[in-house]
């Protein structure tokens, strides 16, 4: 059973192409199901985010599956497969595993360290599971991917730094105010970036969001969109005294908030801190305001500087994280290969132990006057014999699980011993795997 991933992401395909394959998150289960209908595909998961569309597939004949999955994607996006194929990437086995681990740990994202991807992978996994297209191999791989992502998050600094202006604004606000619930924000002007920042802040539980603009209709529109309250511009001074966060992005050519008036506002606030984000170019807030006690003004340049300093640090941490992922891939690949031989080992042991138990029965039947100790001795001897006989074949079978021709081994063994292969459905194997098989 081999793992295969076929897809495209922000590195290999432009957004116009990715758009064609955009599938709503709750439809990824249907897509996963459709993938399993392909000949030779046993398990599948379909991951679609704004930056990537990827098909994770488990099949025995991954080379053939590869071209069929590519065709599936072409059909899904109504694209000519020849036009699509230069934009597709393909990974097999260990490389596919590494790709999965890297994606889930956000190492493959446009902004390394972004926190959303692991939730998106979890959704795709859940959808595919509900659609019944996940069995043992993908279950194991994804569980491990989430574990690895957690390790990356906890042991490296990859997720330590804000990954975008809106995130940074929230983090700065939280450094000043702690929890944002119960605090109020004011939006001055109606820039797109400021709306995004406001949305982020609101998602952290703002008590109130006021919006004010030169044009009351624009203010009202934005208020409706963001769930805030539009206020007339005359109330600005009053609002500045009561809110805690101000996001400003007007198109005014001059400053809107001047040092002298802000000194008065700070005094009226009785020392309560005020965080001002100036997203306008040219700036809305006179820079000197930052020097006022308990007032904090961050403009676009300031935020960009923090972000780029963070970006360099994040790159370094990403390298550490990459090495961690490689190590995990190596360890896990071994375990996945061993999964293949588990059913065979189980059958082998069951077969042998069945024979041993039958012989024990027969002997005890023939010798009814054995006492307890002697019966135990007989049972122990027979079972011990079977275990010793099995030790070498089972150990070597586990070792051989790394060989590419392992399937041949398994087939031969099954033929020689008349074994019936256990059904590798997820219902059975995990419970067996929970008790490690000791030869």
């Amino acid at each position, binding site marked *: 059973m081999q793992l295969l991933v076929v897809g495209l992401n922000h590195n290999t395909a432009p957004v116009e192409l990715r758009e064609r394959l955009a599938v709503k998150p709750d439809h990824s289960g249907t897509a996963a199901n459709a993938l399993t209908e392909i000949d030779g595909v046993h398990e599948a998961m379909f991951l679609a985010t704004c930056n990537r569309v990827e098909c994770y597939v488990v099949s025995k004949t991954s080379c053939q599956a590869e071209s069929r999955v590519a065709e599936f994607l072409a059909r899904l996006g109504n694209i000519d497969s020849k036009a699509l194929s230069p934009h597709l990437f393909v990974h097999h086995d260990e490389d596919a595993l590494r790709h999965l681990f890297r994606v889930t740990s956000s190492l493959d994202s446009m902004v390394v360290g972004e926190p959303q991807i692991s939730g998106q992978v979890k959704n795709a996994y859940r959808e595919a599971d509900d659609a019944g297209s996940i069995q043992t191999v993908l279950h194991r791989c994804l569980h491990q991917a989430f574990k690895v992502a957690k390790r990356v998050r906890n042991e490296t600094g990859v997720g330590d730094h*804000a990954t975008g202006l809106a995130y940074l604004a929230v*983090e*700065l606000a939280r450094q000043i*105010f*702690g929890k944002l619930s119960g605090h109020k924000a004011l939006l001055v002007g109606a820039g797109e970036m400021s709306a995004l920042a406001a949305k982020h802040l609101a998602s952290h539980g703002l008590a109130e969001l006021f919006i004010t603009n030169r044009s009351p209709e624009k203010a009202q529109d934005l208020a409706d969109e963001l769930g805030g309250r539009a206020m007339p511009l005359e109330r600005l001074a009053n609002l500045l005294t009561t809110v805690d966060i101000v996001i400003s992005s007007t198109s005014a050519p001059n400053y809107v908030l001047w040092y002298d008036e802000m000194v008065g506002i700070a005094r009226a606030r009785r020392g309560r801190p005020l965080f001002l984000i100036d997203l306008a170019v040219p700036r809305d807030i006179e820079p000197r305001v930052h020097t006022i*006690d*308990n007032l904090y003004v961050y403009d676009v340049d300031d935020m960009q500087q923090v972000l780029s300093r963070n970006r360099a640090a994040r790159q370094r941490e990403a390298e550490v994280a990459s090495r961690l992922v490689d190590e995990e891939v190596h360890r896990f690949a071994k375990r996945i290969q061993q999964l293949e031989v588990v059913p065979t080992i189980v059958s082998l042991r069951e077969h042998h132990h069945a024979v041993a138990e039958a012989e024990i029965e027969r002997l005890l039947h023939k010798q009814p006057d054995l006492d307890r100790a002697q019966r135990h001795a007989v049972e122990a001897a027979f079972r011990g014999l079977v275990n010793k006989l099995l030790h070498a074949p089972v150990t070597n079978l586990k070792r051989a699980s790394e060989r590419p021709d392992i399937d041949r081994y398994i087939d031969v063994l099954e033929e020689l011993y008349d074994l019936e292969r256990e059904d590798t459905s997820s219902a059975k194997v995990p419970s067996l795997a929970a008790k490690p098989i000791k030869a």
Partner: protein
Amino acid sequence: MLWALAATGMVAYMSATFLHLGSLFKERPWMARGANIATAVGLVVHLGLVVALIVTESAAALLTVQGGVLLGGLGLAAVYLLAGWRMQLWTLGSLVLPLCALSVMASRFGHEPSTPSTDSLVLPIHIILAMLGTLAFAMAFAAAVLYVITERQLKAKRFGPWLRRLPSLDKLDTLGVRVVLAGFAVYTVAILLGFLWSWQNIGLDLEPRTLLAVLTWVIYGLIIQARLTVGWRGRKAAWLTIIGALGAVGVVLTYFLRG
């Protein structure tokens, strides 16, 4: 035996301190947990030291300055754990725990414990309340130092990862206020009792330590007054808190230097 306990306590508290400092730079879950475990160990050993002192010398030994410092450090550790649990403010540990370590060791030094006057309760209660007030100011000192550091970084527009692990300005400010108010109330009574004892026993003698204590009291009174009226928050209040705490600790030091 007392020395062994003191040394163990100091090691425990200092380990916790270093773990807290470490977790500021590289956030690892085991560091934070290890720090709390070390703090708890230190607290238990500290308690053991108090018990051992009572057993080997006498309960009255606690009513001396050395005993007061020991109890004060114990109280500080307990309050720190409480504040950490209720307000999730573990980072203060890197400032507070060294003080606990110091208190555990300092209680072994100093002059021979002055014979505590067991006839009147005024002096012992004065000592206990003064220690409580001082340790409250010590907590406020820790919060204020962190506040100043954080505020400076924000004003300089430097926002590195270790800064994010410090508590928010608001939390530090809130903790500072609560602790200063409590400390001030207790310190007021302590000073009054001090004057009372002094008047009862040696006449109204204005030693430098008394002046220092009164100065500390005035500074904190000022901080509270200014906050209530003009709304003095933030950096200025933090600096005054730091100075005031140094005064309070100075008062305690004079006992050690003079006996």
